[in-house]
């Protein structure tokens, strides 16, 4: 597996000169558009499919970019920059907007000074998230306009326009994108940056101090602003109709769905909404008058559809189309065909061949494998509350070592609830919360503080791999590096946990590769009826903090086929051969002999420690941890 990229490696196409036509992703294009608009500050917390917006923006000059500790802080940093009179961007995935919403819902009362654009990336189809959300509702909720680009070129142009709109109407603007915009690459013609002076903070306590009296006074301004924005939407070139020869059905659509519609139904009239909130109802009404029937094609909720129908315009929509997932051509064609009196298109000529599932796995030498190997062994005696990150894969084979995964940082609150409300069935169980370093800093600290304050009987395992791994290895307050790879203050996890009130005796720092010590430590800590924290420290194998050591190999004549090494869950361990053995009792057991892929193995030694007959050995003398490991016994 390729390690996380190093930013200095190559010249990114986003740096192309004015007028160049380059292949950019939607996320790259948003970064370029914001930069061209003169953005001064950008803040985000990584999250698929939004991550590359900030990553790419950080490559461009004259912009302050930061990975904030969470989305709410990112939003607040961006609001602060706007109040300073600068153009500011914050970006996040859909669930990040839930975290950031408190700040948005209040600043929208006062409005903004410098342009403030919030790029929200919805994971339509749930490829890398815990739920699916339609972030356009935040526009309606917070009374702010929503822009929806369909492809990278539009993403760049709308990012630029969003700042104009924001400043003209003193409102935050939501740039709503979906995976099929963020991660599509297409040729984009880039423009020049417009340098803007930062106006400076204008003291205005009646506006910026949102006390009840100031908030009450300013509330009506939101309604007035929304009315003006409705007029903007009616006249905006971002909302346009394409004529079609077949007027039996007219389609109202937005975002990537627009392109799927045009692909499938080139003859149908289409009204594309690039500025989809406020919905331009006059425009829709006129469009509807020119067709026999109206169909709204939108991902994912009936957001535009409900506004249209509430205005008394008849429309089909989610009665025909699914309200989850992408509306790709293969979804649209068979569902829309009946409305046109056509039969469904033929099935693909060749079937997909039957094969095994290939779920994502932890990497070879992933330090989380050690943790889950141990937790799997405690399985019957513990409840395990998990969190968001690569380590959510611990729920799958071979470990099956997680019971819940909900939201960023929720492992600890849920663990405490499981503890405080436990019934007799769970009385004897230990409760463990598992959380990564970046997630702990994002939203986990408060949960642990609460566990301490409420005297919860919980063991928290912090998986400190010194990076935000799942999203591609971004730095954070615990990695010791800033956005550009420069040295930065590094939070000390044991001291942080102690400051949150965990007794020093109950804070244990372990090496997740050292299986016997790890297992003993976790077992011991679960036996204390008070908050305890095990901090497992080892760098992510894809980070540049990781140093590979020579691979291990299986000595075939020593391998007994016990298959225990497979329980580590390392993708470098493969089945060499299997055999059957009849035990003295007459039962037949399956023997599975292992072989290690020497190219994939990076020598962590976890399998060697899980191997009873000591049939797994280093291929070369290694230094440091790996050598110590080879010498140690079985877990």
């Amino acid at each position, binding site marked *: 597996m390729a390690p996380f990229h190093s930013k200095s490696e190559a010249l990114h196409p986003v740096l192309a000169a004015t007028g160049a*036509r*380059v292949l950019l992703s939607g996320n790259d294009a948003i970064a370029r558009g914001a930069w061209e608009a003169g953005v001064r500050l950008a803040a985000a917390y990584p999250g698929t499919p939004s991550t590359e917006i900030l990553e790419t923006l950080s490559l461009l000059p004259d912009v302050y970019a930061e990975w904030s500790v969470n989305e709410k802080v990112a939003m607040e940093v961006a609001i602060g920059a706007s109040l300073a009179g600068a153009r500011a961007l914050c970006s996040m995935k859909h669930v990040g907007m839930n975290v950031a919403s408190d700040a948005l819902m209040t600043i929208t009362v006062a409005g903004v000074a410098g342009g403030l654009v919030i790029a929200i990336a919805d994971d339509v189809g749930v490829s890398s998230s815990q739920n699916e959300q339609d972030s356009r509702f935040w526009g309606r909720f917070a009374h702010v306009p929503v822009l929806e680009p369909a492809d990278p070129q539009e993403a760049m142009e709308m990012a630029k326009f969003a700042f104009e709109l924001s400043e003209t109407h003193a409102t935050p603007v939501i740039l709503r994108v979906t995976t099929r915009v963020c991660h599509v690459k*297409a040729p984009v013609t880039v423009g020049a940056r417009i340098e803007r002076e930062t106006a400076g903070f204008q003291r205005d306590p009646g506006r910026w101090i949102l006390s009840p009296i100031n908030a009450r006074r300013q509330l009506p301004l939101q309604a007035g602003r929304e009315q003006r924005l409705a007029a903007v939407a009616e006249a905006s070139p971002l909302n346009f109709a394409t004529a079609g020869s077949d007027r039996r059905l007219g389609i109202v659509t937005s975002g990537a769905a627009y392109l799927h519609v045009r692909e499938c139904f080139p003859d149908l009239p289409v009204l594309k909404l690039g500025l989809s909130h406020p919905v331009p109802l006059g425009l829709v009404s006129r469009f509807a008058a020119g067709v026999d029937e109206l169909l709204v094609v939108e991902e994912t909720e009936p957001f535009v559809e409900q506004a249209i129908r509430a205005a008394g315009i008849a429309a089909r929509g989610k009665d025909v189309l699914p309200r989850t997932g992408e509306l790709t051509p293969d979804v649209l064609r068979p569902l829309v065909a009946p409305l046109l009196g056509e039969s469904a298109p033929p099935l693909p000529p*060749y079937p997909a*061949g039957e*094969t*095994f599932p290939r779920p*994502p796995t932890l990497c070879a030498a992933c330090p989380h494998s050690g943790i889950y190997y141990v937790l799997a062994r405690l399985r019957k005696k513990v409840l395990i509350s998990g969190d968001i990150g690569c380590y959510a894969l611990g729920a799958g*084979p071979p470990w099956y070592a997680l019971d819940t995964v909900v939201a960023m940082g929720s492992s600890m609150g849920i663990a405490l609830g499981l503890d405080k409300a436990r019934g007799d069935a769970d009385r004897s169980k230990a409760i463990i919360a598992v959380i990564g370093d970046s997630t702990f800093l994002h939203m986990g600290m408060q949960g642990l503080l609460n566990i301490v304050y409420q005297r919860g009987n919980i063991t928290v395992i912090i998986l400190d791999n010194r990076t935000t791994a799942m999203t591609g290895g971004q730095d954070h307050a615990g990695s010791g590096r800033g956005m550009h790879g420069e040295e930065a203050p590094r939070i000390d996890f044991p001291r942080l946990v102690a400051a949150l009130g965990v007794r020093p005796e109950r804070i244990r720092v372990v090496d997740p590769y050292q299986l016997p010590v790890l297992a003993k430590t976790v077992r011991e800590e679960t036996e204390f009826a008070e908050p305890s924290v095990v901090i497992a420290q080892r760098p992510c194998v894809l980070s540049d903090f990781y140093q590979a050591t020579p691979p291990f190999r299986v000595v075939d004549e020593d391998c007994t086929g016990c298959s225990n090494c497979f329980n580590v869950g*390392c993708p470098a361990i493969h089945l060499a051969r299997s055999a059957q053995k009849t035990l003295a009792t007459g039962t037949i057991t399956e023997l599975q002999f292992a072989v290690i892929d020497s190219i994939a193995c990076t020598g962590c030694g976890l399998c060697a420690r899980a191997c009873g007959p000591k049939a797994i050995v280093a291929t070369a003398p290694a230094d440091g941890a790996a050598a110590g490991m080879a010498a140690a016994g079985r877990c």
Partner: protein
Amino acid sequence: MLMSPALNVFLCGVGGQGVMTAAELIAQAAVAHGFDCKKSEIAGISQRGGVVTSHVRFGPKVLSAVITPGSADLLLAFELAEALRAANYLKRGGIALVNVLRLPPPVVSMGLYRYPEQPLVELRAAGICVHEIDAGGIARELHDLRLVNTVMLGAAAGFLPFPAEELESLVVGRFAVRKPALVAANRRAFAAGRMAAGRMRAEG
């Protein structure tokens, strides 16, 4: 129903194999040649050793970024079982270029599932035009297993509607910036892939 006049290249493989990079290079070559192009994939968690697919569409004008089942002109499979999994994406008469590498995942190693015995036989029995390539074997002959993807791209080049040299210069150009020492090796790998594909086409 009219289709947008685009050529559809569907790439598949396993997280970590470099499928997305290969797709990116084909897309870059298409754009450099003057085509409109969209390249798309759903990445995220699938990178962790899961299935990776990438859609590259190019032509005078490309609308949707998605290749739908039954519409791929070329299936570029970096792994055998993944070719089988993605076979439904091929249009009738489409071509599958398949690396014969087998990468059994842990669920197969643990004995929970079996790896298909004869994926190529299955694909051909379905009526698919299959070109097989031992990209790993060719890379080994060149003494560097990291050259597998360049071999694959060399093999794919002959099926694409622009001169192979245009793709080659992009592949090699990546190394010219970062690792000039690898330029010559990648040139050889690209040429070896092209030759292998040329032989297959002559035979098949």
